[in-house]
């Protein structure tokens, strides 16, 4: 609590203004960014190794992409819920 207050005081004293939600979304996008990178990277590797398995890999790639992506999108939604 006091740490948060200190951060706010620091922000006020240095004249940094803006919406904390933007920072929060930036943080929320890190994990899914890494995740989506891994999903696509490994899928491409798998497709290169075994081109005949491409339909199955592509389908699972989009599935993994969707499951990672939703974390970033939840970060987008949270400010609207708490505003």
């Amino acid at each position, binding site marked *: 609590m006091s740490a948060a207050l200190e951060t706010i005081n620091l922000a006020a004293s240095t004249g940094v203004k803006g919406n904390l939600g933007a920072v929060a979304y930036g943080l929320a996008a890190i994990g899914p960014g890494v995740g989506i990178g891994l999903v696509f990277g490994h899928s491409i590797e798998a497709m290169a190794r075994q081109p005949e398995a491409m*339909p*199955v890999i592509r*389908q699972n790639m*989009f*599935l993994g992409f*969707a499951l990672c992506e*939703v974390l970033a999108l*939840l970060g*987008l*939604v949270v400010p609207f819920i708490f505003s």
Partner: protein
Amino acid sequence: MSTPATLLAESGCHINANCAFPAPGLNSFNFKPIFSIGSFDFTKPMLLAVICMLIVVGFFWAAFRKPKLVPGKLQLVGEIGYTFISRSIARDVIGKKGDKFVPFLTSIFFFVWIMNIMSIIPLAQFPVASRFAYPVALALLVWLTYMYLTFKTHGFKGGVKNLVWMEGLPKPLIPLIVFLEFLQNVITRPFTLAVRLWANMFAGHMLIVMFSVASWYLLTPSIMSAFAGGSFVLAIGMTAFEILIQFLQAYIFTLLTSLYISGALEEGH
């Protein structure tokens, strides 16, 4: 100006005209009602949703009204769409049992896709799914189908087991896993299904509006108009990117729907 403008053309704002940048926000998604019946307002997203419904129903009715062994042009296009869902989604994910659900999946896919495509059609230029109620209604439909199939296939006891149970767990973990499985299967699944579609369309529309407003705002009779040109090029680029995202989101929505259906149909997991 008392209320922020919904449409770009309503703000005659340019740089150097003592006029702050009219940043697009939630106001870009609130439309004045076209007409009202009592307290019921009929707005542009509703009109677009009805048009999308008519397009999907009309197209498939026209394509398959009199099916021929040697398909005509319209029937050929309809069959390509139908077999795309049947082969790449229903057969691959659900298997043989999935043939029954192909019409359901096809309607969902094409309805969501056409609703998304409205984002880039001139004059419409609004993704219907960026108002949260539309994806919620679709996700609710999927959720009801999922629940119905679960309890129909396994009976009440087996259905509950299918939703919350996992085989071969150590005893102390059971309450935690049951709670997490319940949360995942019953609450998070429909919520994320709706949020994924909504947030993608919302963010995509916001990006396009952002760059369009910026190119209008930066347009002045001076060399600075080059920036407006850059912004306009980005708006075009974003539109092209959105075409990809729109198709992908409709595909993912249908893929996850079929995944839930296959989860409801299979024996334990």
